[in-house]
């Protein structure tokens, strides 16, 4: 079986050699098709990488119940507990907020959520709603000055999650990338180039 296939191949090549011009174009075509396949498989690999990153992120969101399950600490207000560049893992459980917990919350009119510690909790008898006051460990005063004008308390719907885990330094990657976008483009470019030139 194999032998006969070999034979036919040989026969074909001899035919091509004799036919000249037509033979050349078929060779070019086959090379082109190889390049197309390679490019296609590289695109698929890249797609898988992007998709799996997205899958991991969305799965984390589902498990933790928090919109942004991982946050990077940007300010010094919680030192020495959290430093700039530390990563926090958030969890959003049904458990009510209690004093001492570190919560991440949104304030109207502010783009970036705040990570601070709860120092006061008042939980309603009838509805179970909570009024929460927060303060940064490193700050002298409580957060009423940071809240929206006239706002005295943080409520459940402001809270994005509570910090449950901690990883130091890793967040510097994102801080550097947001503050120096050129590094981000260089990195993405280098990665893209690496994917294109590297052959499996």
């Amino acid at each position: 079986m194999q032998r006969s296939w070999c034979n036919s191949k040989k026969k074909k090549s001899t035919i091509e050699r004799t036919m000249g011009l037509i033979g050349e174009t078929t060779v070019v075509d086959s090379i082109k098709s190889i390049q197309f396949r390679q490019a296609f498989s590289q695109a698929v690999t890249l797609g898988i990488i992007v998709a799996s990153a997205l899958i991991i992120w969305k799965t984390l969101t589902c498990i933790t119940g928090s919109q942004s399950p991982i946050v990077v600490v940007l300010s010094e207000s919680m030192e020495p507990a959290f430093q700039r560049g530390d990563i926090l893992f958030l969890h959003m459980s049904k458990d009510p907020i209690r004093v001492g917990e570190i919560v991440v919350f949104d304030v109207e009119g502010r783009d970036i959520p705040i990570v601070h510690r709860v120092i006061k909790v008042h939980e309603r008898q009838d509805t179970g709603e909570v009024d929460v006051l927060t303060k940064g460990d490193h700050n002298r005063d409580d957060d009423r000055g940071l809240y929206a004008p006239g706002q005295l308390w943080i409520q459940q719907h402001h809270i994005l999650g509570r910090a449950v885990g901690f990883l130091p330094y890793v967040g510097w990657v994102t801080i550097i990338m947001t503050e120096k976008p050129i590094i981000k483009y260089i990195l993405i470019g280098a990665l893209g180039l690496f994917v294109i030139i590297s052959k499996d």
Partner: protein
Amino acid sequence: MHSFGYRANALLTFAVTLLALICAMSSLSDNLNSPSPSSHVKVLNINWFQKSTQGNDEVSMTMNISANLQSLFTWNTKQVFVFLAAEYETPKNSLNQVSLWDGIIPSKEHAKFWIHTTNKYRFTDQGSNLQGKEFNLTLHWHVMPKTGKMFADKIVMSGFSLPVEYR
């Protein structure tokens, strides 16, 4: 196949995996520690007790707090955040927690302490329910690891009460 890029990549992957594993293991090792902290709080004096212009009761008191939290420290402990909160129930609120004093303990040597202090944060109620109110003083602590999972616990001390009259 054995280019510089591939070797660098393999080395980096290995190093990061190893680092993540060590972080996870050191966080898990915290579970092996079974702490036995102790604490004692005494309210020495009610300095003043009044109703503010907003209609909320407010108290100022002097306390004596002593605690031994040395057993909380492990090799993966960065700091312990300790605070004393007054906890009580009112007709409107099923739970009120008001932090009165807090402190950061950076190392095991400082974890056995004794402090004489007035309340650092305002002891204010939501409303006017504090006259003759019985409350608990709870010493909470939040252990901040060098890496990994944070954990917290508390000691509840009950049997405190506020005076019936403003002063």
